[in-house]
């Protein structure tokens, strides 16, 4: 409407100008001024409209593509890894700095009267359940504060069965299974896998056994036509799989994706002792469904914190992988840990920063269902 008002006022101004100008010099100056203001008046709304149209077109295209993908999924067709140019472009963006700037912006205090509107809008956009929030909306000072909100007592009952492992987060199960048949590889998406030792770190306590020991049996278990585990990227030596050993029998994995509207605190999946913490200062690629199909070694490249330890059944590791704008992972058992800090090198290759908890004892005790960490914006 402002665009139309501008056109209307300019049009009427242009018509009024020759009538209003009585002196020759004044009329000349006025005429020239009218021409300039007309150009300026059209420039901003025109550019805005063009931008809105372009964004609308891109959004419509994306919705169309997503719909096609959804149709494929309904037909039972598994989506394959397919790198694209847009994903490559993300690699050159300063996503860590962008995320820190985003975190600072989201930490700005919102006026009290505006808070319920802001958080309700967020909840509507990202499908969050506001009824579960522990505090009244007015008490969350910023969107960051709201994003890491805790929940009301009893909202997340912990399964009491001693013979079960519970979900550490709210989210969507992307992948799960046993590592044995995959030689220490987890399929990111059909056609591309990443190495678990690369995810956890070379010093990982992951129980391994010599590769040749049960080779014939492994070949029989695996599907010979599915060679996706072979196609791991060789771009970086740190990502190569360890070919001399494979994980022991009875090692399982579960990958859970948290959407922006999900509850973002991480709880302990069992009673266990965390013995080591590793912080990998990596990239901050998005980790949504599209990114998993287009970016190689997503979880191995991204900023993450890995907790390793022992539970009653053996080894346990929990890797909290950051994403664009959510690169700040806070550990309640180690509040001084800071992730997504500014780096001096553009392409750093430094090893992960490691800390051993209680080297003389059994590590730090984590109780099933208790809060362990939180994903912060920034």
């Amino acid at each position, binding site marked *: 409407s402002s665009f139309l008002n501008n056109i209307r006022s300019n049009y009427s101004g242009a018509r009024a100008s020759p009538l209003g100008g009585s002196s020759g010099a004044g009329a000349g100056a006025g005429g020239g001024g009218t021409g300039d203001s007309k150009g300026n008046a059209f420039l901003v709304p025109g550019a805005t409209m063009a931008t809105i149209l372009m964004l609308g077109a891109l959004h419509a295209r994306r919705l169309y593509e997503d719909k096609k993908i959804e149709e494929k999924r309904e037909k039972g067709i598994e989506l394959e890894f397919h790198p694209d140019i847009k994903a490559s472009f993300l690699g050159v963006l300063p996503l860590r700095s962008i995320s820190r700037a985003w975190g600072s912006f989201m930490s700005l205090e919102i006026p009290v009267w505006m808070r319920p509107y802001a958080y309700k809008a967020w909840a509507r956009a990202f499908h969050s359940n506001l009824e579960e929030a522990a505090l009244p909306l007015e008490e969350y000072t910023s969107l960051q504060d709201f994003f890491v909100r805790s929940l009301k007592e009893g909202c997340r009952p912990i399964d009491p069965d001693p013979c*079960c492992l519970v979900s550490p987060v709210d*989210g969507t199960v992307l992948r799960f299974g046993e590592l044995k048949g995959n030689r220490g590889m987890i399929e990111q998406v059909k056609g591309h896998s990443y190495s678990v030792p690369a995810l956890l770190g070379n010093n990982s306590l992951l129980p391994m056994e010599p590769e040749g020991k049960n080779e014939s049996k492994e070949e029989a*278990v695996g599907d010979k036509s599915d060679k996706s585990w072979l196609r791991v990227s060789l771009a970086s030596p740190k990502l190569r799989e360890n070919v001399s050993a494979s994980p022991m029998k009875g090692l*399982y994995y579960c990958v859970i994706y948290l959407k922006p509207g999900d509850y973002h605190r991480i*709880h302990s999946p069992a009673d266990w002792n965390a013995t080591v913490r590793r912080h990998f200062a990596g990239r901050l690629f998005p980790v949504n469904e599209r990114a998993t199909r287009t970016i190689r070694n997503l979880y191995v490249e991204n900023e993450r914190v890995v907790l390793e330890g022992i539970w009653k*059944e053996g*080894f346990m590791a929990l890797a909290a992988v950051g994403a664009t704008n959510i690169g700040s992972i806070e550990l309640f058992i180690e509040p001084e840990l800071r992730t997504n800090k500014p780096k001096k090198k553009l392409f750093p290759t430094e090893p992960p920063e490691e800390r051993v908890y209680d080297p003389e004892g059994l590590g730090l005790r984590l109780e099933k269902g208790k809060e362990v960490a939180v994903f912060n914006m920034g």
Partner: protein
Amino acid sequence: STVVLIFQAPTANTPEGSSSSSDYRFCVKQGDRVRVGQALGRWKEE
């Protein structure tokens, strides 16, 4: 954000390819929505 959980769980010493009730079994499916505290998998104590 994403969480990757890797863990050892009970497996029975049965012939390759067969499974036992004491084996760890996931009780979720790919694409399922899970919540904190919900069981991901179970096994039976022998």
